[in-house]
């Protein structure tokens, strides 16, 4: 609905992706220099000027499938490789984390603070690379310019658009389960205590006025919630204390994130519909991908640097097992589209995606020049 949602969605999901990759790089003991190179490469690609320009144009949100393709590209922007199972898990973690943050934002405007938390952390990742730092600051300024003056109502529309995007996703994440912010049925815990949002009063007071506007009666009521007034508001400036903790890094080497996809929640019936129903948006999605991916300038890895594979699971066996047992409803495969549709656009995307260098051949036959959709299926 809101045409201003994509930049926030992309940057926050990207931020979560970087938190998870950073944690896995350290957990897998990847040498510091290689790890830093991967992070720098991905961040440079994310904040590429042309790409950001496309991102900030007013546009509707596309499906999770279409967006996933962009992150696949991003994750492979450096010398690191991820198998399908690890990429699936990465995307699950990213989306559930941001869903949680959007849901728990006290005010809709706080989504901007969550975004700033992610950007602040990204700046920490690249603190020794001033060139990229400028790009991130530039995006910061674009965000302030675009969202700084939006009303609460417009932010709520953005939030509602995001919630529709995340609807029916109930993947259980172990770090959430351990921290008791998610229930075993995959739903998030919504606290009924703590500070009320900035600008809201603690519930419990009724004031009545006469026709002249004088207060004539005041009564109180109890609710069962346990709310208090907030201390201070977070900063919306380029630098400042955001106050809100949502959007900060919750992972560390000792707290790996696992997802549980084998026991899927019974409400998956609705999300399954998205995969089975005919997909009339496909043409627009291909256009969107062509524009966005066209702006991503992927650096070819230098000759001296050797690639490596990152595993989101604890062992290779676990990764294999996850790939085999992933429930059909949670598959990110693109629905098959008529081969004759939009040949010009398909050719263009083929050319762009043809640049994707796959270090390990993917299953069956999907090398360069293959049918575009088979390429996307193989991602």
């Amino acid at each position: 609905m809101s045409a201003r949602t994509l930049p926030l969605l992309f940057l926050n999901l990207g931020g979560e992706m970087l938190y998870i990759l950073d944690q896995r790089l350290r957990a897998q003991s990847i040498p510091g220099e290689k790890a830093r190179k991967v992070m720098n490469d991905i961040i440079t690609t994310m904040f590429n000027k042309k790409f950001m320009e496309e991102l900030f144009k007013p546009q509707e949100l596309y499906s999770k499938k279409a967006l996933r393709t962009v992150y696949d590209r991003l994750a492979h922007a450096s010398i690191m490789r991820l198998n399908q199972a690890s990429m699936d898990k990465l995307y699950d973690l990213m989306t559930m984390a941001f869903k949680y943050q959007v849901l728990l934002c006290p005010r809709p405007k706080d989504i901007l603070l969550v975004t700033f938390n992610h950007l602040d952390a990204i700046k920490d990742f690249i603190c020794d690379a001033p060139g990229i730092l400028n790009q991130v600051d530039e995006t910061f300024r674009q965000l302030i310019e675009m969202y700084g003056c939006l009303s609460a109502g417009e932010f709520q529309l953005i939030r509602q658009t995001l919630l529709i995007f995340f609807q029916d996703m109930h993947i259980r994440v172990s770090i959430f389960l351990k921290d008791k912010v998610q229930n075993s049925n995959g739903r998030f815990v919504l606290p009924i205590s703590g500070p009320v949002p900035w600008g809201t009063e603690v519930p419990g007071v009724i004031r009545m006025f006469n026709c002249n506007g004088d207060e004539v009666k005041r009564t109180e009521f109890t609710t069962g919630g346990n709310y208090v007034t907030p201390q201070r508001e977070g900063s919306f400036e380029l630098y400042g204390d955001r106050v809100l903790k949502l959007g900060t890094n919750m992972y560390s080497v000792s707290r790996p994130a696992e997802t549980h996809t084998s026991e899927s929640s019974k409400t998956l019936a609705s999300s399954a519909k998205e995969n089975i129903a005919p997909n009339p948006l496909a043409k627009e999605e291909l256009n969107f991908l062509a524009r966005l991916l066209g702006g991503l300038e992927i650096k070819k890895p230098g000759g001296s640097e050797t690639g490596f594979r990152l595993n989101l699971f604890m062992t290779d066996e676990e990764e294999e097992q996850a790939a085999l047992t992933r429930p059909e409803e949670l598959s990110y495969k693109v629905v098959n589209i008529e081969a004759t549709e939009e040949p010009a656009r398909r050719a263009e995307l083929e050319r762009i995606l043809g640049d994707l260098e796959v270090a390990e051949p993917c299953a069956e036959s999907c090398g360069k020049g293959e049918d575009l959709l088979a390429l996307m299926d193989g991602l």
Partner: protein
Amino acid sequence: MYRREKSIALRGSSSALYNNLSVLRPPHRPLAFLGSVHGPAVTVLSAAGDAAGCAQRQLQARAGGGASLVTQAAWCVLPARILLVLTCQKGIQMYESDGSIMVYWHALDIPEHPPAQAVFARGISAAGERFICVGLSSGMVLVFDIPHKGTNITVSEVLKEHHNAITDIAAELGQAGAGDLVTADDAGTLCVWSSGEEFSLLNRIPAFGWTCSSVRLWNGIIAAGYGNGQIRLYEAATGSLRAEVSAHARWIYALDLAPATGKLLSGAEDSFVHVWKLSRNPDTDDVEIEHCHAECVTDTQICGARFCDPEGNSFAVTGYDLSEIFCYSQV
């Protein structure tokens, strides 16, 4: 005191939209239908029979190539007929009350390239015996003239008082002179109108910095729910503020009124549903409101709440991502 009854299962979970539960209570008859929006579709449930055997129908907002997201669905009860109205990004659809046949489709002007401002319709109400009013994201309100039967529905007027997207519209039949229609917008401005051949603006209640997401009208009293969790009561005739309640800790998403008793229902993102009682002091003419009941719907952001009978002895609630309708009734 209310207690929880058996829930009704929904085929699709409810979306996080204002006023995302609509019920049809035909005059002097029991609850007939319930409706909830899920993305590009509306689930219409027949309330007849026990909860387990509820017949469900899904209406898709498909028009002119591709699905579009539905923003609201509501039944409009007019003396001559009852219509189910759907508002979405592409336009406005009107169906027979059981959702079986589409009677009318009104397309919105959609620019070629998406503008920065979203375009959609939102805010639905029957008004003045033969009209249906629907709001737009531009702030305009379309007034449709509804014939007793048939599909010859026309736009009789466009009300242009709001400058922000309409959020909700409410009407009260038979309140001539006092103002029988209220329109609310994203900025929090309320407009009070007198319906008729030509609608006239009676009052404009200024915003105070928060969106008014839900509005109801009863006995000349406007009940408005806001994004900061406040419920405010205004005198429709004068626009003056009569009560201010710090009701919820988060954004209010739904209000409903039980016309026979003046009970008010409020639901918000804070997981709470509250029942209040509105009344008028016969001596001072002051508006009074008291709190009756608080219900916490655990881990749920409420998006819809409706009374299921005119006295307010029972109510139903929907929540974001929830595939059921929770039902409560008075003990």
